[in-house]
């Protein structure tokens, strides 16, 4: 929930009063479907706050709403209900010119390295473009662009090239340079390494980490890749069908998950370890993610949950802080972890829930 910061747990001096860069309050984003008059509940009531200087990881499968969430955080999509606050300011309440000036502080980098690059523009021109829109003088634009180009590890001669002459990894560096020139407070990274080969993923993740240290950046890192999110994040939010299932410190979420979905998701990740070193048994989730048009009643995960109980269909689980800074939406989770699998989860029960 939005007011997680006010609880009176012992904290270290460094994060006693963490400033929040973005706050989502009851964030709800619904889309009408094109022909059937139904509603896609992409985000369906989410509360959280991203703290200054942290990397806030968001993990989820397709249909979880994570991409919609990322776009809403930088005002590319307006909330249907609830609101987003940028450093305490609601961007939806700003006038046009104030909004234009405001939004440069909140930037996004996409999965497709080509998405933001005009094939007919030189790399330098592409990097200067956001500054141009922001109304910076020509001399400042060039200086900052050249500086950013070097900072993301591209050779000066790259400036004169065109996107098709660059590799995917180089193009992603250009996209990072583009947002860097604006000196934003927040960068939303939406699957930024998903399209890259394994061998260069590490380089780009290293670059994000270095830039964060250097410029004090705050990231929201959206990905379906557990190994990436656990590597880079300070905190991790686990999304499922438009809701947060769990939110907590990265290490706790990965090592000691509280939600049955998180536990199953982690166990599904293929690990490149020899058979002798695999200890964990895989928890196989049955079936597929239901449609966000008509999510299940009560807990949205219940149709696939190995620990499901009758109560899960009747009542939506509360968002509870079971460990310090570690939140979960499950009736039966305890501070010790997720509930054990329900041996009485028979086909009958599953059928009854599907119907």
């Amino acid at each position: 929930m939005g007011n997680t910061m006010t609880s009176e747990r012992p904290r270290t001096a460094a994060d006693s009063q963490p400033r929040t860069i973005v706050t989502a309050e009851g964030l709800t984003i619904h889309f009408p479907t094109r022909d059937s008059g139904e509603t896609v509940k992409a985000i369906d009531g989410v509360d959280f706050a991203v703290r200054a200087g942290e990397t806030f990881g968001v993990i989820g499968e397709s249909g979880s709403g994570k991409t919609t969430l990322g776009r809403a955080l930088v005002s590319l999509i307006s909330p249907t209900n609830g609101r987003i606050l940028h450093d305490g300011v609601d961007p939806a309440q700003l006038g046009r010119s104030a909004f234009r000036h405001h939004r440069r502080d909140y930037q996004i980098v996409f999965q497709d390295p080509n998405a933001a690059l005009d094939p007919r523009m030189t790399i330098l021109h592409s990097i200067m473009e956001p500054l141009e829109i922001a109304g910076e003088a020509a001399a400042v634009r060039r200086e900052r662009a050249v500086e950013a180009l070097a900072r993301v590890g591209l050779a000066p001669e790259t400036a004169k090239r065109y996107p098709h002459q660059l590799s995917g990894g180089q193009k992603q560096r250009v996209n990072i340079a583009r947002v860097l020139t604006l000196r934003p407070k927040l960068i939303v990274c939406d699957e930024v390494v998903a399209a890259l080969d394994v061998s260069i993923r590490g380089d780009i993740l290293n670059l994000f980490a270095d830039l964060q240290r250097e410029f004090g950046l705050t990231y929201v890192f959206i990905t379906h890749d557990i190994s990436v999110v656990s590597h880079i994040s300070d905190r991790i939010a686990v999304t499922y069908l438009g809701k947060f299932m769990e939110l907590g410190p990265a290490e706790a979420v990965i090592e000691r998950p509280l939600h049955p979905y998180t536990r199953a998701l982690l166990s599904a990740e293929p690990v490149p370890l020899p058979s002798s070193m695999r200890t964990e048994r895989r928890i196989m989730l049955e079936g597929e993610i239901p449609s966000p048009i008509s999510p299940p009643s009560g807990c949205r995960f219940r149709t696939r949950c190995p620990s499901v109980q009758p109560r899960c269909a009747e009542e939506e689980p509360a968002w509870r802080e079971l460990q310090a800074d570690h939140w979960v939406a499950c009736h039966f989770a305890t501070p010790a972890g997720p509930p054990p699998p329900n041996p009485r989860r028979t086909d009958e029960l599953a059928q009854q829930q599907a119907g």
Partner: protein
Amino acid sequence: MNDQPSTSSFDGGIASAPLLDVRGLSLAFATADGELPVTRDVTFSVHPGERVGIVGESGCGKTVTGLAILRLLPQQSTRLTGEIRFEGQDLAKLPARRMREVRGRDIAMIFQEPMSALDPVFTVGEQISEAYRTHNRVSRREARERAIAALADVGIPAPARRYDEYPHQLSGGMRQRVMIAMALICEPKLLIADEPTTALDVTIQAQIIDLLRALSERTGTALIFITHDLGVVAEICTRLITMYAGEVVEDAPVDPALIRPRHPYTSGLLRSLPGLAQRRAHLPSIPGRVPSPLAMPAGCRFRSRCPQAMDGCERPQPLLPVAPERVARCWRAPELTLPGAVS
């Protein structure tokens, strides 16, 4: 090199004759700018029941190797040299008509995007039945029964109802199951799977991996699993082949390869995985890029990116035996101790 008793757990056993024996396979594409070499001297074999993972970065030649085995590359613009021996006969020299009999019946293939292989205007059941009737003289009704059984085999609920649905009515995971049902209905001896789980969510990927492994174990179908994901290889395969810049650079049983890779490229791939590194630590990476096929260096093709490169690497690098059942294309392999997944 094989004087020790084999400790491998291949279902078919290493002593049996190979099912597939690819020898010196080189492929080149004709382009407007001349001939583009894509693979060179690719040599490996697959034994009955074995599950072989082929890994490498995009452009390393893994997909074209899979397509070449099934002779699915455009004939006019592809130059193929070498042998593709399947149960003793060279597929590279097989007349097109005979090749059509092999395809689907003896060797089948599934792809990353099932929609590209499914026809949107026929029901999935009709397409599976057709695959069966192509190679078996049976009535429509019998083919239908076989197809429904095949859908049940790949874990599709209510298979008789699903039979009459069209591809667009199914989710990505269900479509991939349909593809697997279609590929396996003629009980092929070899299934080539090209990134079959890459487009799927991780919980669905886990289902498909378990399904493929279980089917392979039950039916004895050998598997070539083409992927960029070493985690997937670790979970499903018995052997790992690493390709780089069109060449096989390492070929080894999976577990030993993960514990102690013998080619610096395999080691680099393993070390660059974020899951294995210390959280938030700097990730090791492989600097540079794969050389262009038109400017391929002599000798070791990986040497410009290799932390172990030294004088001598510019000499031709054959695949050398480095341990029982293991080869690596690196003359330094015997002296190097390279970090793997466990170090």
